[in-house]
């Protein structure tokens, strides 16, 4: 009887040992901004190599917290950490993908890209000064259009979000009053009386889709996937541009990645006739000296694969894949610092 039990245990242990050596599962958590493209990459990566990448879209602040607590193998954030914070935590940071934040509205009768706004007006809507769509300031930017008499409901993020950090970074650059009174960050104090909060980019899209006359900000992939009405924005050069792969690429063209420690540059309000004013990169955080070196190396292998093979997937979802010189820079200067 006892030898029988011992044999079963031995068999079970052997079986589980062999099974676990087949596939390595890595986990990442953080920004909902790049979640659509990370999940598509993870799907394709699993098909090709059998290794599973689990990504939890919990917001940039959640991602930073989870990687600091070492519960995930990589953290993702749109709001980059500064050089001294990275050094204190012993982490490295590198961009993985570039995308754009767009303003979406729920105004039946308007096609995507029909309504125009500039930074000043956008900031005044989000701080509650303008609360009806037929306001004179909006009409001034949209000559000839008939604007409805509809109260504006401002939809923002209720959780700590890198998308919010990017959006408010743009509003800070575009509107001096916003810069003085509210500023930018992952969570800000939204002053508009009608403000409604949604959880994640997903929550904001859902709220904007349901509330008539609402305006919110989401990553472009969400606006495209849910077929929402996007707005044209006026960029630094004074031209009105629509969000698209080309306008995001134009904004990213002049980026100087090595200028900031941790590659944490801001891409809002970039010069260029075709630049989208609210472009941003999304970053990955990993430890220089990870506790689980096998999983950390596997995560690097995933991103290496994604940089080489994931460009077409990214373009399909209207994200801008990193150009080759940036990925080479990352491989040489960032991944080399991670202990393998």
């Amino acid at each position, binding site marked *: 009887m006892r030898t029988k039990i011992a044999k079963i245990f031995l068999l079970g242990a052997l079986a589980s040992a062999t099974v676990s050596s087949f596939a390595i599962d890595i986990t990442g958590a953080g920004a909902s901004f790049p979640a659509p493209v990370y999940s598509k990459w993870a799907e394709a990566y699993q098909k090709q190599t059998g290794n599973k990448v689990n990504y939890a879209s919990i*917001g940039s602040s959640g991602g930073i917290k989870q990687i600091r607590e070492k519960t995930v193998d990589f953290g993702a954030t749109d709001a980059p950490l500064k050089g001294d914070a990275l050094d204190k935590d012993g982490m490295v940071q590198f961009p993985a993908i570039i995308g754009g934040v767009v303003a979406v509205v729920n105004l039946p009768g308007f096609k995507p890209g029909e309504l125009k706004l500039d930074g000043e007006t956008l900031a005044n809507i989000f701080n509650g000064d303008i609360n009806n769509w037929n306001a004179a300031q909006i009409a001034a930017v949209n000559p000839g259009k008939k604007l409805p008499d509809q109260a504006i409901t401002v939809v923002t993020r209720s*959780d*700590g979000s890198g998308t919010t950090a990017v959006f408010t970074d743009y509003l800070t650059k575009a509107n001096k009053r916003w810069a003085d009174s509210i500023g930018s960050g*992952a969570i800000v104090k939204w002053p508009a009386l009608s403000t*409604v*909060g949604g*959880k994640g980019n997903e929550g904001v899209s859902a709220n904007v889709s349901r509330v008539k006359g609402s305006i919110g900000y989401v990553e472009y992939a969400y606006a495209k996937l849910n077929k929402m009405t996007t707005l044209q924005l006026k960029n630094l050069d004074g031209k009105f541009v629509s969000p698209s792969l080309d306008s995001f690429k134009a904004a990213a063209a002049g980026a100087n990645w090595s200028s900031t420690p941790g590659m944490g540059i801001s891409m809002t309000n970039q010069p260029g006739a075709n630049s989208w004013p609210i472009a941003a990169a999304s970053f990955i955080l990993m430890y220089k000296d990870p506790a689980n070196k096998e999983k950390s190396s596997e995560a690097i292998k995933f991103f290496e694969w994604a940089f080489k093979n994931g460009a077409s997937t990214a373009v399909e979802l209207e994200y801008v894949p990193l150009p080759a010189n940036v990925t080479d820079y990352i491989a040489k200067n960032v991944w080399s610092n991670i202990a393998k």
Partner: protein
Amino acid sequence: MKSSPDASKGIKLTAEVAKMMKFQRFQDYFFHKITLFFASLVLVILAGILISLVINAWPALREFGPGFFFSTEWDVVGEKFGGLTAIYGTLITSILALIIAIPVSFGIAVFLTEICPNWLKRPLGTAVELLAAVPSIIYGMFGLFVFAPIFSSHIQPFLTDTVGQIPFLGVLFRGPANGIGLLCAALILAFMVIPFITSVMRDVFEIVPPVLKESAYGIGCTTWEVVTRIVLPYTRAGVVGGVMLGLGRALGETMAVTFVIGNAHRITPSFFAPGSSIASTLANEFGEAEPGLHYSSLFALGLTLFIITFIVLALAKWMLANMERAQGTKN
């Protein structure tokens, strides 16, 4: 099977019988200690939760003092926190939910016990119990995708045109009809709480001795008189218990409320406006709060909810004691 020893007849205990009795004594002792352990586990867990809440909330409470409970500030960047918005949201949604749920539950329970034809009793009763078993996140999805559009396109305009026109009370029911907000959350909570209260009420109404009700009917009481003068007084402990159960669920409900309450950190007079409750604030912000004032303010909110639930329970017991004392003096 040995015959059991009969001590009164003075039969001498054989060795086997003595061994069996010793084993049974040991079993009793073991059973006694195990059940005592489980019961004291409850006390230990309760004390543990309370202590950890207080310890983690202490930095915020020390920083803001009692003003924490009266301030509507919620500034993460400037590190100024106040719990009034969340407390107001929790209390208002729960109270509104109960105001709607209690009469409806009472009506359903009375129907099921007094008026319902026999063939309908079983299916209706099962339907109510099934509703009570539905997970709360399903209610949240139902609320967000099905109920909120109906609410904003039919119910809210109706309320604005009727109740919203009353001079002073009307301001509570006016505002943009976006389908999410305090009133919508209260209605979803009412849907969730009705099955609970109905089940408890129906169960206690059914154990009223039929002889009491039949005597009342026999001297000519109407159904209403039987229910209010015989059934309700007899079952008051159960009814109050059921209502408190529903209130407890409404106070702590998280996901369903988070979906539809709008997550705004301000108090507006209108019930149509978005707000936030303690549970929805915790659900939204806990995952990413860094240890510091934000983190301990969230714990302070949790402690507040704990205290509110405790007060509700104490109030229920006090109310029951009063009712029973009143009945005692009346009789």
